[in-house]
């Protein structure tokens, strides 16, 4: 695990952060895991990333649907996963998760904790931590390979 960056920023400043730090992650891997407790802002960050990628569909929480599919302005597929409701790895297999993971598509993953053993070795991890100020978050980006 190699830490690529660590920064503490407010939601207003997050656009710059996404442009300068996060979009560069796709050079390393199309598979990005977002970790952080409920309410930390995982879906919100993914919404913003999708915005930058030119996704036109509405990006909403896939907690219920498990996976949402979008396409970028360049026509690349994006899978947005949420494994919050998954209790056993079997359940993820049951909906064919390996086919999604093995595709060439961009995978943005929430609640990966519940399917840890299925994650590809090479991936980017974004850890979101709360800070003392309500509107600020600490983001740590690392490369797992």
């Amino acid at each position: 695990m190699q830490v690529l960056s660590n920064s503490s920023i407010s939601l207003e400043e997050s656009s710059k952060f996404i442009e300068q730090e996060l979009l560069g992650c796709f050079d390393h891997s199309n598979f990005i895991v977002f970790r952080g407790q409920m309410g930390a802002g995982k879906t919100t960050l993914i919404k913003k990333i999708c915005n930058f990628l030119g996704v036109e569909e509405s990006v909403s929480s896939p907690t219920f649907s498990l996976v949402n599919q979008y396409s970028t302005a360049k026509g690349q597929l994006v899978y947005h996963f949420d494994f919050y409701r998954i209790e056993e790895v079997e359940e993820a297999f049951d909906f064919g998760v390996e086919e999604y993971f093995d595709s060439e598509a961009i995978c943005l993953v929430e609640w990966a904790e519940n399917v840890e053993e299925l994650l590809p070795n090479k991936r980017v991890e974004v850890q979101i931590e709360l800070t003392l100020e309500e509107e600020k978050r600490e983001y740590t980006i690392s490369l797992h390979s």
Partner: protein
Amino acid sequence: MKGCILAIESSCDETSAAIMINREVKSNLIANQTIHADYGGVVPELASREHQKNILPVVDQALKKAKVSIDELEAIAYTKGPGLLGSLLVGSSFAKGIALSRNLPLIEVNHMKAHILAHFIKDENKEPELPFLCLTVSGGHTQIVKVKSQLDMEVLGETLDDAAGEAFDKAAKMMNLPYPGGPLIDELAKKGNEDRFKFKVGEMEGYNFSFSGLKTGILYFLRDEVKKDPDFIEKNKADLCASIQKSIVDALMLKLNKAVKDTGITHLALAGGVSANSKLRAAFTELEEKACTCYIPKFEYCTDNAAMIAIAAHYLIESGEIAKQASAPEPRMKI
């Protein structure tokens, strides 16, 4: 048999099959423990392989319960979307299989429209007068829809992030309540003071909703309070539940009220699984005091079920909207 429809719903966790004749439900089965028990199987809830196991027994029992043979069917309907692709595929493949082998018309149904059309299932409940506004609230969806006719609907607003039902479940999770937390919050809230705590729900433009900020608000509030008193959640559970429930319901009603005011439509309908919430039902029916007429379908037609797919198919058949064999699921299908 004239007008006999077999409908299949498999958009998310539930596998359901229903038989309907002329808007009357003859059977409406949802795969659950009893069906599995009859077939000697086990029951993890989720996903497409489960749907594959469930679909045959559930269709079989729907036919038997309705006392209808497969030869008497006149149309096959299935949920085209929105939903989980793997789950939708099971229903669509099965429906297409029967339609092809029996040479029956295939009807593709939008799950969100079906939730609304559940109001037109023939039973003792009154049907809404057209046009009406429908607030659809479930674990996966939150929408305000203007219903001009059974086939002509327009989404006025929807959630931009979490669904209302999801907000209930996740708030419950933060208070360490078991899943699904929505019904538990409703129960605990009855003993609580809903004005004790204030939680802010994001203000969105038009008739749209956002519930992800509420989640973050609760998270920070609980973090700070638990720091001062580790037993804070336990001691204040009822008040917390009541206050959170009020925030969510108020946010829903605010936008519904705005839609009533702006459109002048006074016939209002509720749909989706969250319509079981007692606070929401009370707030919704209170609108009758403002000269509105309110409609809530039977609860069995509010949660995901195939009877609502059948009623939607009924209207599609009437207007001659028959699908081709090339019909395929659409996971993010719009109204």
